[in-house]
C-alpha cells in the first residue's frame, strides 16, 4: 500500500517539475531497486501506483472540460469511450511501471548477491 502511494506521489510531483513521460519508468526502477524483500511490492506496488495515477488523472481531465478532445481522440484511435481510453491509459502505465519495478528489484537481487559472494 505504501509503495503504491510513494510511487503515485513521487511521479505526480516529478511530472509537474519536468515534462518527460518516462518518470513512470525511472521512479519504479529506483523504488524496485530499493525494495529488499517483496517482488509483489516492487512490481505490483509500482504498477498499481502508476495505474491509479494515470487512470485517475485521465478521468479528471476527461470530466473537467475534456469531453470533446477525449471523444475525438477515441475516434482517432479506433473507437471506444472516454472511460475506455482512460482505462487503456492506466493499463499501459501499469504495464510499464510494473516491468520497471520488477527490473529494479531483479537488478538489486543480482548485484547484492554478487557483492555477497565476492
Amino acid at each position, binding site marked *: 500500500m505504501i509503495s503504491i502511494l510513494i510511487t503515485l506521489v513521487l511521479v505526480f510531483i516529478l511530472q509537474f517539475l519536468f515534462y518527460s*513521460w518516462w518518470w513512470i*519508468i525511472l521512479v519504479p526502477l529506483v523504488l524496485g531497486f530499493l525494495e529488499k524483500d517483496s517482488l509483489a511490492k516492487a512490481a505490483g506496488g509500482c504498477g498499481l501506483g502508476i495505474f491509479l495515477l494515470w487512470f485517475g488523472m485521465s478521468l479528471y481531465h476527461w470530466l473537467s472540460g*475534456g*469531453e470533446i*478532445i477525449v471523444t475525438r481522440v477515441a475516434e*482517432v484511435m479506433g473507437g471506444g469511450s472516454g472511460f475506455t481510453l482512460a482505462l487503456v*491509459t492506466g493499463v499501459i*502505465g501499469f504495464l510499464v511501471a510494473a516491468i520497471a519495478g520488477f527490473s529494479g528489484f531483479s537488478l538489486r537481487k543480482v548485484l547484492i548477491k554478487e557483492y555477497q559472494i565476492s
Partner: protein
Amino acid sequence: MRIFKTILAFCALFVLFSLLNNSQGSIPPLGKFLNPFVGFWINGEALDHIDEVLDVKGLKEEVKVIWDERQVPHIFAENTYDVYFAQGFLTARHRLWQMEFQTHVAAGRVSELIGSKAIEFDKTQRRRGLLLGAEKALQKISEDSETQLILQAYANGVNTWIDMLTPVMLPLEYKLLNYEPETWSTLKTALLLKFMAWDLTGRNSEMDMNIIRSALGEDFVNQYYPDDTPRTDPIVPVAKPWHFDALVPELNPAAFEPQFVKDLRNAEPDRDNGSNNWAISGKKTASGFPILANDPHLGLKLPSIWYEIQLHTPDMNVYGVSLPGAPAVIIGFNENIAWGLTNAGSDVMDWFEIEFKDDSYSEYLYMDEWIDAELRVEEIRVLGGEVVLDTFAITRFGPLVYFGEHNLENDHPVGLAMRWSAHDPSNEMKAIRGMNLASDLESFFSALDQFDAPGQNFAVAARDGDIGIRHNGKYPLRGSNQGKFVRAGRDTTGEWREWIPRDQLPVISNPWRGFVSSANQNPVGKKYPYYMGWEYEDYERGSRINDRLKMMENIGFQEMQDLHMDNFNKGAQYILPFIIEQLEPASLTRDEIEILHDLEQWDYVSDPDERAAWVYKQWWLHLEQAIWNDELTLFGEVRELPTRSVTAELLLRKPNLIYYDDINTPETEDRKTIITSAFQQTVSDLTQGLGPYGDAWELGRARGTDINHLLKVKGLGRTGLLTGGGVGMVNATKKTHGPSWRMIVELGDSLKAKGIYPGGQSGNPGSVYYDNAVDDWVAGNYYKIYFLSTPVVQKDTNHLLTSLRNYQ
C-alpha cells in the same frame, strides 16, 4: 538464472520504452501521447481560457483585446507594429499548428513530418517554385519599410507565442505527429500567400488541349472549347464601351505539338475554387446604404482556412477574415468601405516545353543556342534522418516542373517549365494594407495596383454610396488563344513580355442597374480588346445572381442571406425538361418511371432533402460521359470535357452529332438512346450504391458535405453534413468544397455586418470553438459581427477583455 531474468526484464523495458517513446507508423508515441500530464488529455477546453492580463515580451505599448462570444479577438493597439504583433501572437494562440503545417506543404517539407511517402509530393511542390516566388516577394517587400515592419511584427508575435508554449500546451497535432514548432519567419508568410495563389490559379488544361487538338483536330477544340462560355452574363456588362488604345501583342505564336505528354490535372487545385461577390447601390436597399456580400468557395477543412479578427489603431479600424499565417485582413470592411473577393480565372500560368542538351539539364535550347539553366539543389529531409537531394532546372520560362521524357527525333531530354505570374517579384501585402486603410473606391482600386497574384475580382461598396468591381491582377499581354496550349520554349514566341496596363483592366463603377457582381465568369464581352484566358466558370451561378439582383428592391440582410443560400439549379432548368422529353418511356421500368415522375415535378431547387437534385446531377454526369468519354480517352486518361453549357447547347441544338455514338460499340447510338441509357445507368448505379429509391437518395444524404481535418484524420473532422446546393448554384456547396466565409456588410452611419464560416476560431480539436459554427453554417444562419470602436466590454454581452502588457 536470476541474471538471465534481469536481462530479460531490462530488454522488455527497453523495447517498451522505444515503442512508447517513438511514433509507430501513423500511431503517435503512446507514452507521451497518453501521459495525462503532457499528452492529449490536456488539449481540452481548459486551453480556451481567456486571461485578463498576459505579460507579452516584445510589445511596444499595452494592447487591449476584446474577445466576443465566438472568441473573435478585437485588437486595440496604439501603433502599427503592436497591432500586427498582437495579430501574430493571437492567431498563433489559436492556429499555430495549421499555420506551420500549411507552410510545410507550400515549401514541400511534408516528408519531414510523415516520412518517405511524401517525397514525390515534396519534389513536385518544390519544382513548382512556390519558395522561389516567396523569396522574390520578400526581396520586393524589403523595398518597402512599412510592409517589412508589418511582416516582421507578425512574425515576432508568432514567435513570442511559440516561446511561451510549454510541451504541455502544444497543439494536438504536434503531439500526434511527434514534433515541435519551429521559429516563424517572414518567408513563411510569403510562402503562405504563394500557396493561396497556387490554389486559385494553378489549374489549367494546356496539356489536355494539345492532346485533344492533336487527336481530334483544331476545329474540335475551337468548337467545343470556345473562348466564350455560352450564355454568359459577364462581370462587366457587354454594353460598356472601352475608351483606350489597347496594346497589341507582337507575335501570335505558331501551333506546336509537344513531345511531353503528362496529365497535369491530377496534381492541380480543384476546378471549382470560385466564389460569389456583389455590391449593391443604396438605390436598391431598404436602408438606402450600399451592401456588400461575399462567399469565397474553397476546400473546406478543419481548422478553418479563415480566422476572424478586428484590428484597431489610431489610424485604422478594420474587421474581417485573415489567413492564419499572414497579417492584415484579406476580406472584410472598415468604416468606409467593404470588399469581397472572387477568383478571376484569367490565365496567369503557361506551360512551355523545353529541350535540353543532355540529362544534366544544365543547358537548354533557346534561339538556336544552348544556354545555361540555373540549377537549384533541393534538400528534402525525411522523417527518420534520410536526406534526399533533388536538382531542378530554372529556365527563362520558369522552373522545370515535369521532366523525364525525350524528344523522339534527337533523343534530347524534354520537360515542362511553368511560367507563372506569382513567380515574379510583387508585394501583395502592401496592397492588402492599402485595402484595409482605404477610404473610398478610388483609394481601394489604387491599392490594388500593387496586387499582382492571384488575379481576383474585387467588389467594393463604399459608405459614400459608390459601388464597383475590378478584375484585378498582373495579366500578360497575349495573342488570341495564347496560353490555351503548351508552347515551345525555344524562342520569343509565346514569351511573356508585356502586361495589360492596370488602367485598362475590366472595371466598372456605379452601373445603372444598381449593382455589380461576379461569380468567376468571363469578365467581359467581345468588345474588350484583350484576350485574358478561356477557362472561366459556366454561366449559371453568375447569371442566377444577376437575375435575382435585378428583380430585387428594398434589399436587406434577409434577402442577401437567401441569395447566399440559393439552391436554384439554373443549368437543370435549362436542360432537364428537354432531356426528359427525349426519354423513351417504353423502355423504362416501373421504378424508373417513378423517379422520372419526381424529376418532372422538381422545381430545380437543390435543397438537402431533394432526391431529384441528386438524380439529375448523376444523370447529367452519365450523359456527359456517354457523349465524350469514348472520344476523349487519350493516352489512357479521360481528358478535359467540354463545359456543361457547351454540352447542353449541343444536346439542345444538334440532334445528329456524331459524338453521341459510342465508338467502342458496334451499334450506332443517337441522342435519344444515350439520354435514355444514361438515365437507366444512373438509376441502376444509385440503386446499387444507395439501395432502393428512398430517403438515402436525398442530396444531403447521398452527397452532403464533409469537412475533414487538414491531415484527413478520422475523428477530427465533421462529416455527413446535410447540405444542399452544388456546382452551378449560388450556394456552391459540394462534398468537400464550398462557401468558406459568408459575409454581408451594410455601410452607413451605423455599420452593420453579419458573417459565418464553417468551423470556429480555435484550431484545437478539443475546443468548443473548433467547429461551433458548423451547424449554423449548414442551416444558413449568420452571426452578428461586433465592429467595435473602443476596447470596452459592452453591456449585455459576455465579452471578455485581455490586456497584453508589455513585458521586457
